[in-house]
């Protein structure tokens, strides 16, 4: 009987340990939950990307043959989330983005870019993880047609590398790409 109980405890312990091994990105300092904004979606979802670390590492391996630094920069990332969708009520989304701006800045995110040009607005935030390194990148953007873009990149984010890679990956006709 004692042996049975002991085996049961060991089994439960092993199962709970295995579950605990699954990565929880929400606890990462560079993670930001922008679910409040995506809930305001009224139109179609244009882009939805959710890539976790193991898959990003595989992508980084694929990029090893490409230009210097691309594979390393991608490999240092833990999570890539992108949501692009349309909204009807631009005023409500502007208010929501303003609230997000306050929330981000109150939780130690630094706003490095704030632009408002005609009806387009875009904010870029970074989360500092220590000396000269960022552990998170957050982008919020809204254009005059009501297209909302939300990006959250978790991991060791090098703005220089991300900028270079972004130029490399500048896909032609991306606005029309509705996948």
């Amino acid at each position, binding site marked *: 009987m*004692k042996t049975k109980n002991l085996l049961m405890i060991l089994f439960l312990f092993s199962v709970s*340990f295995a579950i605990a*091994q699954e990565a929880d990105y929400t606890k990462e300092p560079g993670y930001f939950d922008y679910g409040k904004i995506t809930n305001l979606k009224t139109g179609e979802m244009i882009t939805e*990307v959710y890539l976790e670390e193991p898959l990003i590492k*595989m*992508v980084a391996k694929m990029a090893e043959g490409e230009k210097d630094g691309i594979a390393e920069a991608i490999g240092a990332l833990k999570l890539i989330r*992108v949501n692009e969708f349309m909204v009807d009520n631009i005023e409500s989304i502007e208010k929501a983005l303003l609230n997000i701006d306050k929330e981000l800045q109150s939780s130690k995110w630094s706003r490095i870019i704030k*632009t408002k040009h005609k009806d387009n607005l875009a904010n870029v935030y970074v989360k500092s993880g220590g000396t000269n390194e960022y552990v998170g990148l957050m982008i919020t953007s809204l254009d005059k047609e009501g297209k909302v873009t939300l*990006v959250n990149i978790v991991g060791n984010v090098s703005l220089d590398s991300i900028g270079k890679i972004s130029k490399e990956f500048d*896909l032609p006709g991306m606005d029309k790409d509705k996948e």
Partner: protein
Amino acid sequence: MNRKKSYELDEEMIDKIISVAYNDANIFDRIFVRRAAKRNDNVKKLLQTYRNTAIKVHNLREEDCPEEIIDSLKQKSIPLRITKNAFGTDLAAIVFGRPLVSAIASIVVIAAIIVALFSTREIRPVYSRQEIEYADKQTRQALAIVGKIFNQTGTTLKREVLNDRVSKPIKDGLEIVNNIFN
């Protein structure tokens, strides 16, 4: 096909009978010897004889060693054998001498190995070629979106801020200064 067992009293059989008589045999040997004793009189007699002996042996009591023998041993100064690692041998005796303790110890060791493996190795999911290619496309798409926003903000910074709000006022200011001095 039924095969009649002969239950020959060979060395192996005698060892089994002795073990059963002294209650040292495992469950299979006990069943085997008891069945043999029922079917073979020689086995039955031998088992009974050894049982009687075992009972007598178990009934033996400890007796004090006579003083003269102890004295003679001291005089001969026979070195006493002391096990150095008494704790180790005691522990080994507890672990391997009792099946339940041995089983629990084995489980604990196995659990420790499993925990060590889980804690040191990352669980790496296996992805298909298509999944990786799709992820690669999504990564490029995500980074392209980032690049597009960076470019937009950069353009706004150049055109709206540097050109209209910085360069133009400076230029206007310099023109005014030039007009004053000219």
